[in-house]
Each structure stands twice: as structure tokens, then as C-alpha cells.
């Protein structure tokens, strides 16, 4: 189990380095010396060395980890009525026409939202959820 997860980008190759901070250990004895033997592991026995002196077959390794959610995109929002300046925070979850996006407005705006001026939105695509207890409006629709 890793103490800090690593996000692999699925674009580049993945480099792995295993090292020790003292000279009492060697992981070489735990090599899973795969029979094909072509993919290489560069190694050195000196724990202070920055360069390898030999190579052998690569370890057989497995990973555990969930896919990373799609990145959250920001959008600009123009508020026509400047009489109030609510704290607005918008999030888009996914940017495809078939994916939901969620917009959060951090303030009690009951009765102050008359229309969402987005040409790709229509009334029947919207779902409003009132939750005065947390003074927020939650809008879920399709873009």
C-alpha cells in the first residue's frame, strides 16, 4: 500500500524506481525475473549511486487504483442583475453533450433565479432542488 497515490496519465510510460536509504538492504533477491527477460531493470548495489552498473529482467508488477474522474472544467457566468453579487461557484462534471454537469451556487437565491441563459439548456432538462437548510441551490441539467 502506497502512502501517496500516484496518478498515471495514460499518455506517457510509467517509470518505477525502488531505492534504499542505507546499505543494509537489497531488493535484488526479490526480482521476479520474468523469463522473457527483454524488458530491463537497471540496478546498482551501492545505495548512494546515481547510475546503474548492471541490468536484469524486469519485475512482474501489479497495480491497484481507480480511474481518475474526468477533469472539472470552469465556465464563465455573467450575472445580468448586478443588484446582488452572490458568491458563485460553477462546476462542470464532464464536457460531453451526453454527460451531466452540475452547477453549485453558494448563497440562498430562492426566487432570484428566473432563467438560465444558456442556449443549450431548456426547462425540461433542468432539475431544481431546494434545500434552504444549507442555503444553496443545486442545479443539475444537461449541456
Amino acid at each position, binding site marked *: *500500500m*502506497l*502512502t*501517496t*497515490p*500516484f*496518478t*498515471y*496519465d*495514460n*499518455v*506517457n*510510460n*510509467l*517509470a*518505477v*524506481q*525502488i*531505492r*534504499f*536509504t*542505507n546499505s*543494509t*538492504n537489497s*531488493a*535484488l533477491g*526479490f*526480482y*521476479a*525475473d*520474468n*523469463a*522473457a527477460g*527483454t*524488458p*530491463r*531493470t*537497471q*540496478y*546498482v548495489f551501492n545505495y548512494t549511486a*546515481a*547510475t*546503474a*552498473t548492471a*541490468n536484469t529482467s*524486469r*519485475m*512482474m*508488477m*501489479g*497495480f*491497484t*487504483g*481507480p*480511474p*481518475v474522474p474526468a477533469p472539472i472544467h470552469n465556465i464563465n457566468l455573467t450575472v445580468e442583475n448586478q443588484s446582488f453579487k452572490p458568491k458563485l461557484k460553477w462546476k462542470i462534471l464532464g464536457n460531453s453533450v451526453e454527460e451531466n454537469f452540475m452547477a453549485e451556487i453558494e448563497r440562498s437565491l430562492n426566487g432570484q433565479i428566473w432563467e438560465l441563459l444558456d442556449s443549450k439548456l431548456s426547462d425540461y432538462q433542468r432539475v431544481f432542488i431546494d434545500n434552504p437548510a444549507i442555503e444553496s441551490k443545486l442545479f443539475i441539467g444537461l449541456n
Partner: protein
Amino acid sequence: MAFIYNKSELNIAGINAPTSISEIWFRTNTAGSTTLSGLEVVLGHTTLTNLTVSTTFANNFNVGPPLTVLNTASYVYTTLAGTWNVPADR
């Protein structure tokens, strides 16, 4: 020691999207266990391949900075037994 897994290999193994790696394991043909001290594991992105691993360890991380995913004074290291070249199952 340093080694590289190509994107194509990871894709075949089932990683087909950006993935948060939270655990790694190793497989040998014989199960074993020992306690390692001063162990560090570093992961990073690279354009090098499994056949062009640099002998200069730092050069293998040539796409952004590497990340130390494990740095521990003492670690019980257990390998899983399995057939050579069949690392996918756990």
C-alpha cells in the same frame, strides 16, 4: 533500481484511462517475505521505454517531477507466488 512499463503494456493490462495508483505488488515464482528498512518507491512519467531505461536513475523521469509514493523506515515486503510472466492476477 529502475524499470519502466510502456503505456501499451499498461493498456493491455487494463489501464486505459488516467488512473490513481494506490497499491503495487510484485510476483515471483516463490512467495517470500522480509522486512526492509529505509525503503523508498518513486513513480513518474517518462518517454523512455522498457528497453531504453537509463542507467542514470534520475533521467528516467523525463516528464514532470517524480513522486515518492512510499518512504518508510521499515516495511514488511511480501511477494506473491505465481507463474513467470503472469503478473496480472493477484
